[in-house]
């Protein structure tokens, strides 16, 4: 192994603190559901859900970077893992969610009732 290993238990516990705090915030928001976040939409999704997804990605960043020790890897490895994922996931989400919404519109505006 080329890189030197220093003990970083301090950082591990710090990251655990961050992840726990973010989870508590998520549960708190999920139970309270503040009106102004829950009822206001942005790009087809309410603000509360945007916050949930942002916090999830924030947690994911810490898990991959600190726990999976991505921060200690070479940038070529980082890029090889992270960029294909980001690109492909955004791509499939875009396609499927657009299509799902389209089918919703078709059901809604058609003259045939599918579920009654």
């Amino acid at each position: 192994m080329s890189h030197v290993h220093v003990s970083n238990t301090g950082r591990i516990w710090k990251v655990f603190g961050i992840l726990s705090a973010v989870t508590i915030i998520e549960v708190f928001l999920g139970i309270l559901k503040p009106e102004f976040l829950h009822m206001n939409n942005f790009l087809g999704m309410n603000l509360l859900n945007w916050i949930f997804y942002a916090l999830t990605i924030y947690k994911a960043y810490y898990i991959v970077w600190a726990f999976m020790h991505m921060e200690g890897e070479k940038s070529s490895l980082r890029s090889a893992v992270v960029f294909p994922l980001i690109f492909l996931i955004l791509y499939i989400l875009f396609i499927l969610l657009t299509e799902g919404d389209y089918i919703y519109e078709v059901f809604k505006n058609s003259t045939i009732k599918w579920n009654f």
Partner: protein
Amino acid sequence: MEATVTTANSEEKTWGGGNEPMGASYGKLMMWFFIVSDALTFSGFLAAYGFSRFKFIETWPLADEVFTHFPFMHGVSAPMYYVALMTFILIFSSVTMVLAVDAGHQMKKNKVILYMFLTIIGGMIFVGSQAWEWKNFIKGEYGAIETKGGSLLQFVDKDGKRVALADFAATLPEDREQLTRNKAKWFMSEPALPSYSVAEVQAGFKAHPELLIRTEVITAAKQKTILSRAESETRLTQAHYVVEGANLVRNEYGSKLFADFFFFITGFHGFHVLSGVIINIIIFFNVLIGTYEKRRSYEMVEKVGLYWHFVDLVWVFVFTVFYLV
């Protein structure tokens, strides 16, 4: 040793083998690429869930009405506390795993043993919790009615509080026998009959004028629509099937796909946790018998650690998608 832990080629022989262009050993790199492909699999599942949800955006079940159980708290609506607890357990087992990796780097065998052990225990508690969650989901709490058209009707009282079928269904002198093989009905089979027949639910509803029907449709206030008494009565004439709990065909929570995705995605994740626990146990015994001590490298612990953190990572997303959003 050379087969499992490659060392950096210091002799500058580009084609001589043993190169690590990405600064990671072969095994570690392959674990990363496995994780990439597995992450894409999970993304596919979650995106498919999103697709179905966008398709039925107006009738999808509300998560905080579905997952309301907490151990030893019967009849108390505790949305999300239990999954939050499960999330903590999994994050904590991730922490002990990373501590094990850290101890491995310093060749502290006893610390690795302790932390690996804690990780395995955490994983087992998580899988057990998930089994309990499934049990509640499958058993259901209130029961519902499916109409001929395939939509789902739930029952509420005047205040909008859910009412279970058992609380109002009438007992009619009808006897519908469950068909089983031992009664010489070998050519017929059927799933278990619901506790009440459609007629019993209808009669019970008539006898309780305070009851109303709640449909799947979500209003502008992000609540389920509650029909008036007259509308409820007309709606109930179309009743076709009594739904109790959840299975892969229908569930009492709402959209049929909801239960399918729940079982499939949390099941697939639970299967990952289970395999993670088994792999961790194998590595744990290897640590115990000193395999990595002899190898002078605890990289194997690091590799299973990567897998274990990945399972945690997936759970973070499953938690958001199923329970929060």
